[in-house]
């Protein structure tokens, strides 16, 4: 019969509407916990920015440089300025200058300057994947909108640096794996 399809369609929409409404109003914590997951009933979306979903561990946006704090309070970057990240970067948005020994003029394994143009960075994660020193890692902080572009989007070493503890916090599994590998290496060699 003509029109049944339309009525059916409307019924579906109304059912969705009411289930959403009731889940939102009366489902309280139960329905809220399921939102955006496979078990979602009623309202599917999460009301950003009041609530937000936690990002998974592998989530990647804009690299950062890992440093540890030495006993004298100085930052010690893991980066050795080997340049692999700059070579593998698909958009070539990483610029590195090697540090030179002031007396001899020979390069030392540390970066004097390290820039990333985050306007160009496409968050592919290659730099973190191929870094042999676990010195550059992908961040989780995606709320980086700003009013200005241009030079403020070229992050320097200071801006890129984040402590090792931060890395351990956002990527616990990867961190534990890497530390185990390091420990095994230290024992063997």
């Amino acid at each position, binding site marked *: 019969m*003509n*029109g*049944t*399809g*339309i009525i*059916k*369609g409307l019924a*579906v*929409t109304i059912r*969705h509407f009411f289930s959403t409404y009731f889940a939102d109003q009366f489902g309280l914590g139960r329905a809220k916990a399921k939102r*955006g*997951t*496979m078990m*979602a009933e009623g309202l*599917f979306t999460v009301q950003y920015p009041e609530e937000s979903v936690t*990002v*998974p*561990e*592998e*989530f*990647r946006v804009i690299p950062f440089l890992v440093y540890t704090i030495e006993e004298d309070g100085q930052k010690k970057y893991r980066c050795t*300025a080997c*340049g*692999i990240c*700059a*070579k*593998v*970067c*698909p958009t*070539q948005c*990483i*610029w*590195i*200058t*090697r540090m030179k020994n002031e007396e001899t003029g020979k*390069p030392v394994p540390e970066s004097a*300057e*390290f*820039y990333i*143009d985050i*306007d*160009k960075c*496409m*968050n*592919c*994660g*290659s730099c973190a*994947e*191929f870094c042999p020193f676990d010195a550059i890692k*992908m961040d989780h902080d995606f709320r980086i909108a700003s009013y200005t572009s*241009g*030079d403020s*989007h*070229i992050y*320097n070493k200071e801006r890129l640096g984040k402590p090792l503890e931060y890395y351990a916090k956002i990527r616990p599994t990867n961190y534990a794996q890497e530390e185990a590998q390091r420990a095994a290496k230290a024992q063997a060699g």
Partner: protein
Amino acid sequence: MSELTVLHPEYEALLQRFAPNVEPDTRPGFSGIVVLPASLIEVVTYLKEQMGFDYLSSVTAVDQYPDDQFDVIYHLYKTIGGEGLELKVFTTRENPVVPSVTQLYPGADFQEREIWDMFGIRFSGHYDLRRLLLWEGFSGFPLRKDWHEPLFEEEVKPYKSRWPEGRAFHKEQTNPFHDNVQYPKEFDPESVSTDADESLYKALTANLANDEDGLHTDRMVVNIGPQHPSTHGVFRMSAVLEGETVVALKPVLGYMHRNHEKIGERNTFLQNMPFTDRLDYLSSMSNNFGYAITVEKLLGLPPPERGEFLRVMMAELTRIASHTMSIGFLLNDLGAFFTPSLYALEERELILDIFESVAGSRMMCNYFRFGGVVRDISAADFAKVKYLVEERLPRKIDDLDRYLTDNEIVRSRCEGVGVLTAEEAIACSAAGPILRASGVPYDIRRADPYSIYDRFEFDVCYRNHGDVYDRYLVRLDEIRQSIRILKQVIEQIPPEGPVMNGKVQYLVKVPPGESYGRVEGPRGELGFYVVSDGKVNPKRYHVRAPSLINLTGLEKMCVGGKIADAVTILGSVDIVLGEVDR
């Protein structure tokens, strides 16, 4: 490294018949048959009519700079399945002319226009040889090796300026409107007259007969897009109308052109992987898949067992995500504004959550590597996939089916609209759901299996009417078949094992040679043609984009119908502009 191909006895006969105008390509790493330009049409006619190569998959060209030579390469297949044939025609860089094969294969239309646009090779006998992606009046041919873009830095990446003497500078300092491009002093931009759209309108009305018998109505040119919500991006259709009926229609492309292929030739092999995500951004896993198997053919580096299963799992999840979205947005184009598409988006959302957790990003996955995948799936994510495939998806797809398939509005707007017959679909080189909805059961997963698809049990979905409604049904069927494949993947996947072969290296040296790999993406045959000269950068990197080539048949589908249906038809072709315009 691919060794010299042993020729099939059938091809031996072909070589003997057309000798000395035809000979095998004997360069190491290369295969295929080289034809003299003068006898190309004769050979192609024979191949099509006597040997059954009815499907022209891809046409592309390679610049052999500094040698004075262009190669034009044709990849032909049979729609009954089986291996393909590679034809090559050599022409000079000085005066590049090759006969057009559009008379035999109308599907070469856009591809030959693209080659003219990018390489400047003329195709004699092409009925409408205009630039495809760039505007008329563009200076130079960008894919020639001696053409440099305005922000040109170096021939190939990695650029030497980045390390060790890295001096950061912002790209705006090299803005073309600053001092990077120099104009002559007396240059007046107003004095430059570009052809604008004159040649387009000329081409549109070229083949129209004057309709003197019927009621006299004025013809009108209507441009839909490039800024129009129903064109799924910056796409423009230029249509000639008589009343409300479309009498001619041409797509106008290139508003989002960024020359993906030139970027690909500057990149190293590995750097191209994240760029392929950005082609068809709704099915990045499939794009990764196509590129990975193409380069793996050259490297001779097959992935390990578990890696293969993960690849198939991701590719099929992508297909489901892409098809649910396509179905949702088709309803959007029919006027059911956003309610059905948002219902469909829920399932896609869940699949993207899995991608985010496994690959690190929702759409720009960058998950595949040469010789495997970048990381293993965690037990929690695997359980999610399992629940999705076994519990939730079948139920939700049945829901979609129940709401939409018998809806009167869907049926009356879609049935009999935008018909493409089987012959036309093959001739236009249509691929994927478009081809299968026209009654051609051609699916690369079955016709020319890659990866481990020969191990799975699934049906090739096809329908016979070739209209919008059948394309919708084929997509729905394909989701069900994908679920079926996924169930087998979950059952058979080895519980443990490596996911990647070969050692981790950031500069992959690829042995010299050529390779054409194709996968069945959600939108059809996605092919990658890669030529390596033994360095870390590809010499040629070509993408056979299904969205672009499916548009070849758009005019045939739209002519004779109403202008309102053109939007529906475009929705059923399901283009993604990242891939069309590349």
